């Protein structure tokens, strides 16, 4: 039983402070934190956009925003929340915890990981610069052709086409990285079926992204070529087909929904067992339900097109496949309730958000089933009913799940606890605000209010519920403010957490908070699901929980890391050195995107960007991985 030995330290004390150390870092934990902070900033920005939209819709015929401003803001709200908030917040958790949960010291390709982050930042800045460079994208986040190609002389939808393209490159790179990490970096004994469910969901999401992003990538280039180089992919008058875009977009767009929700489901599957003091009910079923959702997710895209005119046969087929997907989703929900059943539930803030996730996601899931009823969906489609549905999935679902993750893992990131009292205010305010905002939208949609409208007249019965929804939106804003105050205050003055504040189950709780750069002094050997838990507890004859006789409580178990096999053997842990080449490559890519937006003069910038990118890649290829190799 090894105890931390003084001489066993990382060989390279990478400058832990200063801007440069963050720009050059390849540490998965620091990259995860940067993803998280960037996502939070975009969450605030996207939220402010939503507040403006809600102000405009609070009353009929309002003039808070012009139609033009409204269209840009709702488009950017959608793009921001999908690509700049939920995907990166999931990436933040995956980056930070996937390697630790697997018992690894970093991801498989640390510098590629840094590249993913910086390319994502570049894509975000690129998209937002559009506000001052001719207007933001205003063709909705789905960018339907031929509206998206109707005005080639403007740049707005070029920012859309290239921005998503660049963000997609970041996601593909990080997905490849996560897949390689799961397949090659697991600690001894960490078989696939011993991985935490969160690691499983990260793996599934990585596959979803790798298979779906290239599809929309093709569509985006076609859109870009139609707009800039006179191609006619989507131009009906020249024999093109506007519906081609919808197929390409939703063949990406529907798996994307699962990309957004599955990591949150992974978090919930970690939090519920921890706070119920029981193992996850039906681990294998939860994992395989996730895989089933991902597979089926590629076969339901046309339920977004029930009004587009595919013909009754296709509509019936996609209606049935969409119904199927409710089965694995139901399995997950029932297993989560099964997890709490008979447990000893501690209702701390992470648990409240996870329970809130289950409660709200059920509503989003059921309204999803109503969409599969194709004839009835023709009334709901593109109405506020759909807006209500996907916010119940992506806010009541995903955001609640990620909030649960923040409260759960904040102690691991910072070594301090988030304040519980403030956290509970946050939860209840957000729960109230969320339901006030989005529950009425079901009614608005069924009562005939289409989405994406900048105003509505009096007399159609839309006034009251729109006003309530706006009140709800501001309640959410207050809850987010409470959350941010909690983050800032607790980072400085929160209770000291210690390594295992929640009596956790997975490996991240076996190492100090915050973890050392190399994560594990000695690589752990894994013997079961929730290995760390089983080092602390065992079961009596009745299957009841009993603390391990050797250790009281669990505090001791923290230092009791079992010696693994792949220690270097000479007491040194090689960690990759920092590198600025990933950031440089990302800068080159972003500059190229700006250049492409402003062709033909922009070709110069495309050239400069390409050369920068090549320099970055070349330097990357030839630099030594660690200083010692020099």
């Amino acid at each position, binding site marked *: 039983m090894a105890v931390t030995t003084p001489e066993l330290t990382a060989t390279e004390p990478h400058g832990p402070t200063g801007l440069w150390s963050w720009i050059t870092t390849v540490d998965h934990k620091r990259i995860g934190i940067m993803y998280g902070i960037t996502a939070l900033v975009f969450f605030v920005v996207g939220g402010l956009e939503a507040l403006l939209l809600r102000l405009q819709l609070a009353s009929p015929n309002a003039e808070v925003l012009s139609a033009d401003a409204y269209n840009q803001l709702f488009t950017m709200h959608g793009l921001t929340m999908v690509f700049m908030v939920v995907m990166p917040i999931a990436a933040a958790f995956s980056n930070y915890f996937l390697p630790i949960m697997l018992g690894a010291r970093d991801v498989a390709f640390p510098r590629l990981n840094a590249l993913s982050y910086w390319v994502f930042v570049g894509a975000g800045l690129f998209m937002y610069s559009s506000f001052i460079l001719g207007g933001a994208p205003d063709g909705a986040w789905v960018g339907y052709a031929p509206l998206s190609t109707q005005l080639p002389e403007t740049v707005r939808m070029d920012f859309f086409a290239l921005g998503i393209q660049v963000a997609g490159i970041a996601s593909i790179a990080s997905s490849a990285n996560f897949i390689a990490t799961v397949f090659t970096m697991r600690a001894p004994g960490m078989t696939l079926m011993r991985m935490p469910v969160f690691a499983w969901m990260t793996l599934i999401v990585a596959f979803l992204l790798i298979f779906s992003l290239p599809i929309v990538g093709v569509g985006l280039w076609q859109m870009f070529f139609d707009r800039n180089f006179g191609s006619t992919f989507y131009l009906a008058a020249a024999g093109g087909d506007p519906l081609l875009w919808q197929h390409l977009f939703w063949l990406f767009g529907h798996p994307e929904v699962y990309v957004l929700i599955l990591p949150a489901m992974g978090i919930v599957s970690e939090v519920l067992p921890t706070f119920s003091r029981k193992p996850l009910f039906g681990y294998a079923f939860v994992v395989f339900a996730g895989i089933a959702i991902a597979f089926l997710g590629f076969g339901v895209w046309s339920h977004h097109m029930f009004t587009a005119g595919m013909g009754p046969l296709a509509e019936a087929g996609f209606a049935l496949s969409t119904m199927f997907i409710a089965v694995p989703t139901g399995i997950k929900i029932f297993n989560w309730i*099964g997890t709490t059943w008979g447990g000893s539930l501690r209702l701390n803030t992470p648990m409240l958000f996870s329970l809130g996730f289950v409660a709200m996601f059920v*509503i989003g899931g059921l309204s999803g089933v*109503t969409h599969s009823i194709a004839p009835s969906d023709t009334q709901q489609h593109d109405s506020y009913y759909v807006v209500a549905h996907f916010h119940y999935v992506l806010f009541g679902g995903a955001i609640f799940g990620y909030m649960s993750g923040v409260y759960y893992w904040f102690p691991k990131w910072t070594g301090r606890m988030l304040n519980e009292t403030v956290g509970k205010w946050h939860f209840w305010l957000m729960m109230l605000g969320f339901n006030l905002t989005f529950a009425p939208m079901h009614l608005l949609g069924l009562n005939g209010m*289409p989405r994406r409208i900048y105003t509505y007249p009096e007399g*159609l019965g839309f006034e009251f519920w729109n006003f309530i929804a706006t009140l709800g939106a501001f309640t959410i804003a207050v809850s987010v403010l409470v959350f941010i105050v909690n983050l800032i205050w607790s980072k400085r003055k929160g209770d000291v957490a210690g390594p295992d504040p929640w009596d956790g189950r997975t490996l991240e709780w076996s190492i100090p908070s915050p973890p050392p750069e190399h994560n594990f002094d000695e690589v752990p050997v894994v013997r079961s699901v929730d290995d760390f838990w089983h080092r602390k507890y065992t079961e009596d004859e009745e299957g009841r929980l009993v603390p391990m006789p050797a250790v009281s409580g669990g505090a001791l178990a923290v230092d009791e890391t079992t010696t693994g096999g792949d220690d270097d053997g000479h007491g040194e842990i090689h960690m990759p050195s920092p590198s600025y080449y990933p950031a440089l490559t990302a800068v080159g890519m972003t500059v190229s995107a700006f250049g492409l937006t402003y062709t033909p003069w922009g070709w110069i910038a495309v050239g400069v960007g390409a050369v920068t990118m090549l320099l970055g890649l070349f330097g990357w290829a030839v630099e030594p991985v660690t200083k010692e190799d020099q």
Partner: protein
Amino acid sequence: MVKRSQMMRRRLVLLFATLGLALASCSGSGDQSALDPKGPIARDIDNLWLLVFWISVVVFVLVEVALLYAIRKFRERPDEDFRPKQIHGNTRLEVLWTAIPAVILAVIAVPTVAGVFNVREIPEGPDVLEVEVIGHQWWFEFRYPAYTNAAGEPLTTASVLHIPEDVKVNLIMTSADVIHSFWVPALNGKRDLVPGNTSNLTLIADDPTPSDDPLPGQCAEYCWLAHADMRFKVDVDTQAEFDAWVAEQLEPVVVPTSGPELEGWETFQSVCTACHQATVQQPDGTVETIGVSLAPNLGHFWGRGVFAGAKYEITDDLMAQWLDNPSDLKPMDPDRNDIANGRVLGMPDFGLDGTQIDGLIALLKSWE
């Protein structure tokens, strides 16, 4: 501890009271509501929705009650040293909660598939009224190929669709520019209008609507600036009313010979006909169709009652404002019009003076 759980319970009660209130008010709805069907197709859809809605409510209540029960019943008691039994799963339960939803979905699947084929069935036969619907940024055009006027033009109107009660109306729809969607919730679900494609939608209305209160509808596929203002009305007539309306619409409008109307006619010929069309009867009795069909047909314009994508009622004041600068009343982008390539993004400000505007209003009024 007790106090805290009481507070939580109170909050939960508040939350569910809100949700309950929302559900309870489902019944009260406006004219554009899908929950208040006014024709057999919309009613079939509504019945299908109600079936699934109530099944969903049952599932919702069962799941939420189970969750709340678990939270209440299994909450950690600080005074007890309770050690939960470590249950890892139960295959029988897994099979059960895989099979039960699958069975429920199979039950829903049958009427769904049947409904898809029913709703999508294109009506044929001598009793069917065919209407062509063309979506434009940002107004709907309606053409009745069964009725042609003396100049050989099909009956063409905009913003108000007239249909007779109890008749199967087959809408044959396409778009002149971007994708739009035709949605009159009281009669049917929505259907997209895709450039280069035609799509069909069937409307059947139970009862005539009062002519001052027709059924409202709206474009449901985002089509840029004035998407929210791309509205239309469906005026359901008795067969006799409908026939009278058709006869009136087929009459050419009369070219004036004097007064402010003549002033308006001159402006009409020099400005409006670049985009608008009308079938007119010249003073010598000849009937001809003049102008270009890029914007709403102006024959019998004033009688429609609404204009600008059915956003406004037609009044002298609003008409004067519109002719002075259309973009003041509706967000459009006429500066980017490219008439040669058929790209029309709204009516420009032609800098008409007061006499011209008064003349045009007089002319259009005479074309009721």
